[in-house]
Each structure stands twice: as C-alpha cells, then as structure tokens.
C-alpha cells in the first residue's frame, strides 16, 4: 500500500510539473514532449488506482497515437527560432488572466470537494478488463454507440478530405497498387 501511495504521489507530481512545462514552454516540440510525459504520468496514476486497462489504453491511444500525430505535424513544419519569438510576444501576462480565473475556480471546487470528503479511496482492488467490458456493453451501451457514431462521422470526414480528384485517382491507383 505504501509503495502504491508513493508511486501515486510521484506520478502525480510529475504529471503536474510536465503539464506546467508544456503550457509555458516556447519550443513547440519540447512542449509536446512534456505533454506526452504528462500523459504517461497520468497513465501511471490510473495504474495505481487499480485500473491497469485504462492505463494501457491511455498510453496506446493518447501517448502513442494522438500525440505522435501532433509531433509528426510539428516536426514536419519544423518551426524555428522565429516561432518561439512570436510565442514569447503572444504570451503576455494579460493573456493569462482569463484562463487563470477559470483554473482558480476549478481549483477552489476541487479543494472544496476534497475538504468535504468527496475523494473516496480508490485503488482498493484492481479492475479486470472483463468488468470494464461488462459495464461498457451493459449499462453504458448507449454511450458506446454514440461514441462509435461520432467516430464514424470522423472517419467519413477524413475519407472525404483525403479523396483525390476522380480522373487522376483512377490512373494513379492502377499504377500504385
């Protein structure tokens, strides 16, 4: 139990620090890598909560696929020192006020919830994948179906964007395949 708590706090601190660095970092690639570290640390937090399945999914989907896509685009553009100069100009103290207030409200809510004992002790038992599957396709089946519809819409959108002009595609595809 002690080892688990220890891991939780270390991972939590890493997640908070990495997120802060991701927001304040001027180099876009570094910021993305910090964001990735933050996601990995969050995965570890899930793991200590007794949700290894969600932890693995977090790594596969967020850290391994979505962030890789972001990194891919960032590195392709290869923004130089000009971009970080512009970033420095954009991030003025006055820009921070709005998000700062919103974040403060959330923080106050979190503190309030914690003070009133809303934080139940998690991680008493490890949740097996089977339990998650039974929950997803039992009580939450409508949510799963809605999410799959949303993904289908995204898929069709991506197909539409990626489609070539009709006459060119015929001759090219024959040659390619």
């Amino acid at each position, binding site marked *: 139990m*002690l080892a688990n708590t220890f891991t939780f706090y270390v991972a939590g601190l890493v997640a908070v620090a990495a997120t802060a660095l991701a927001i304040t970092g001027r180099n876009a690639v570094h910021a993305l890598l910090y964001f990735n570290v933050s996601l990995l640390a969050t995965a570890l937090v899930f793991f200590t909560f007794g949700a*290894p399945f969600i932890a693995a999914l977090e790594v596969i989907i967020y850290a391994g696929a979505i962030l890789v896509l972001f990194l891919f685009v960032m590195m392709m553009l290869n923004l130089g020192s000009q971009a970080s100069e512009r970033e420095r100009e954009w991030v003025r103290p006055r820009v921070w006020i709005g998000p700062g207030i919103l974040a403060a409200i959330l923080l106050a809510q979190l503190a309030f919830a914690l003070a009133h004992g809303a934080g139940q002790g998690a991680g008493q038992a490890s949740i097996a*994948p089977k339990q998650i599957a039974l929950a997803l396709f039992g009580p939450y089946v409508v949510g799963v179906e809605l999410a799959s519809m949303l993904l289908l819409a995204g898929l069709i959108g991506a197909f539409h964007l990626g489609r070539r002009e009709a006459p060119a595609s015929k001759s090219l595809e024959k040659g390619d395949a």
Partner: protein
Amino acid sequence: MQEFVHFLQHDVLARISPPLGALPDQIVLLGAILVGAAPIVAFMAVIAMAWTYGERRIAGFIQARYGPNRVGPEGVLQPLADGIKLLAKEDIAPAGADRPLYELAPLLVFVGALLPFVALPFSEKWVISSMAAGVFYVLAFEAIEVIGIIMAGWAPNSKWSLYGGMRLAAQMVAYEIPMGLCLLTVVALAGTLNLGQICQMQGGAFGVGNWMVWPWVSPFATLAFFMFFVGGLAATKRAPFDLPEAESELVAGFHTEYSGIRFAFFFMAEYAAMYVVCAVATVCFLGGWHGPFREWLAPAAGAPTISDLLGKAVQVKTADGAWFVWANLWGALSVLGKWAFWKPMLYELLGAFYLIAKSFFLLFVMVWMRWTLPRIRIDQVIYMCLKVLLPFSLLCVLGAAAQTVFTDWNLLHWLLSAGK
C-alpha cells in the same frame, strides 16, 4: 504490485532472514526492480548479439558468400568485437542538434523495447508480471518506442534523419491498428487479455494440436497470424518495409547522425523489438511454451512447486534458530540434489526452450525475407496497411467473435436473454 512486494517481504526475505523482511516497501520494490531488470537487459543483449551474427551469417549463405567467419571459430565472436568497436568509437553530435533530445532519444527507444519483456512470458511460470491486460501492455510499449524514434529523427537537425523518422512514425502508427486487431482476434477466441492464459489453452494433442494458428482451431486466427507477422515486419522496420532506413536514399534514416554507443542502443532495440513481435506471435498463435513430450514432465496435482521446496528448505533452518543468511543459503542449495526439484525445473526449461525456439524460427523467417525481397515504396507500405491488412483484420475480429458466440451455447443463450 502490492501483492508482489508483500510476497517478497513475507515469503522470500523474511524466510532468508527476519531483519530483511522488515525492510520498508519502497526499498524492497526498488531492489526487486533492479534485480528483475538485470536479466532482461542481459537477455536483450544476448538476443542482439546472437542475431547480429545470425543475420549476417544467414545473409552470407543466401547470397552465396561466407559472412563473418574470422573472429573466433566460424566467426561467433564477431558480435563481441563489434560491441568493443561501438563502445570505443567517438560519440559525435551534429552542431545544430537539440542536445537534450538527441541524447534522450536512444534511451527512450531502448526503454520502449525493454518494457514489453515485463509482461512477456518465457515459460508457464517464468513471467515477471502476469498482468490481466498483458496484450494491451505489450502494444502500449510498442507505442512508446515510436516517440523515441520521432525524437531521434528530429533532434539531430538533419534531412535524412527527419525523413526516416517521419516514414517510421507513419508506418508504425498505421501498422499498430491491424496488429492490434489481429491480437484482438485471439483475445476474442481465448476470452482473456492475459498472455499466459492465452498460451495455456493452446496445448492439445501432443502439445501441438490446439495452436491458434491451425485452421481447425479457427480459420480467422490463421489469417490473423500471417497478417500479424506482416504487420510485425513493418512495425520493426524490416524489409520489405525498411523504408525508414533505406540506405540508397536516406543514408541510414533516423539513426544517420548517431555513432558509437548511442547507435548501439538503436541496434539492440531493433533486435529486441523483433524478438518481442516474434514472441508475441508465438505466445498468441503458435502455442507458446507447448510442444511435444512436455506433458511427460508435468507435475502431478498437489506436487510441491519449486518455490515450495525452496521455502521448506529455508524454513527448517529458521526453526532451528539459525537465521544466518549463509545457513539458509546452504538449505536452499541442498534442494538441488532432489529430483522433485529438477522435474518441475525441466518442465519450465523445456517450455522456455519451445517458446524461444519458435520465436527464433520466426526471427529467422524475418531475416530470410530481408535478404530475399526487394524494398517496396512508402505509398505501397501504407496502401498495404490501410487497404489490405485493415479490412481483413476487421473481418478476422468479426469472424472470431461470431465463432466464439455460435460455438458456445451458454454464451449465445446468455446474450439472447440479456434483454429480458
């Protein structure tokens, strides 16, 4: 993790010596991690060394030449000489490189290749962590390797590296999907995500009759196995999918700018990743540790296990009041003279032999293909993934799910009555 620490404290350390059992959790955990990591790193190094030699030797035979045969008998010491050469080489970093990322990238790739070994079984009982979501865990750390490789492609500020890194990222992220779906086919058939349990149910007649890959177990798994292997070739950037390091156009791809020990890390990670893909294919499709004659050594129900025997030998000394570590060590050593100890030991060893031998056969096929097939184009690589492997792997998952439902009367009945 807690149970593991608890087990170490109460069943191992406390039995060796009471003061050891009273160590704090964190120190026990840290020690266990360090002790557990050492053999994995050693195993990785051995695989990399064996296969650098094996690959060049097989390439030599395929191309009707000798390959390395000067250092030691038949050239078997060549990898050692290469290792010394790599260690002694100058470590050069390009002037325009992003130094922290440049230095971190090989380590990240190495760690990404190392971590799947935690969930990968070597034999029935020889697995570091038999976790419930083992299949997903292995896939997750394939994903971490991609980040390291993208970093390696971008950090040196070189065109060749960047193109190599981009190609590899596109290729690995794309091929993860059909590979995951192929594994999902097996998961649907086996009804579990635990690699050990998936393997356990593939015994059958003579230890070979029930492998997932056989069409009579499931034709969908047969198709999935071949697709998984093709996906594995692409995910480990092996020919004909080795576009990321295409020598004729990109010098050496994402590791162009690396030299010396940093290059050695990439090299080791590549062979480790190949082994991981082959071992996962073996565990999920080729029966893993099952093989002929192994049942003869199977321990009878209720027979003492290796850890029971060791625990007993150690406990006797504790009862005598002599808890001195060396006395217990002698007790542990005395077990070595008993057949009851060697029989389960041989059982596990034979299992490990079968698993590693099958994985090495798949590795051999990878090497064979590399020196036989020409490299294909990058658009063909992606076409192959998205328009060939992806639809067919989806078909496999659907077919396996249908097979699971329609061959299990209880499950079908449960599903049909679930709405009522």
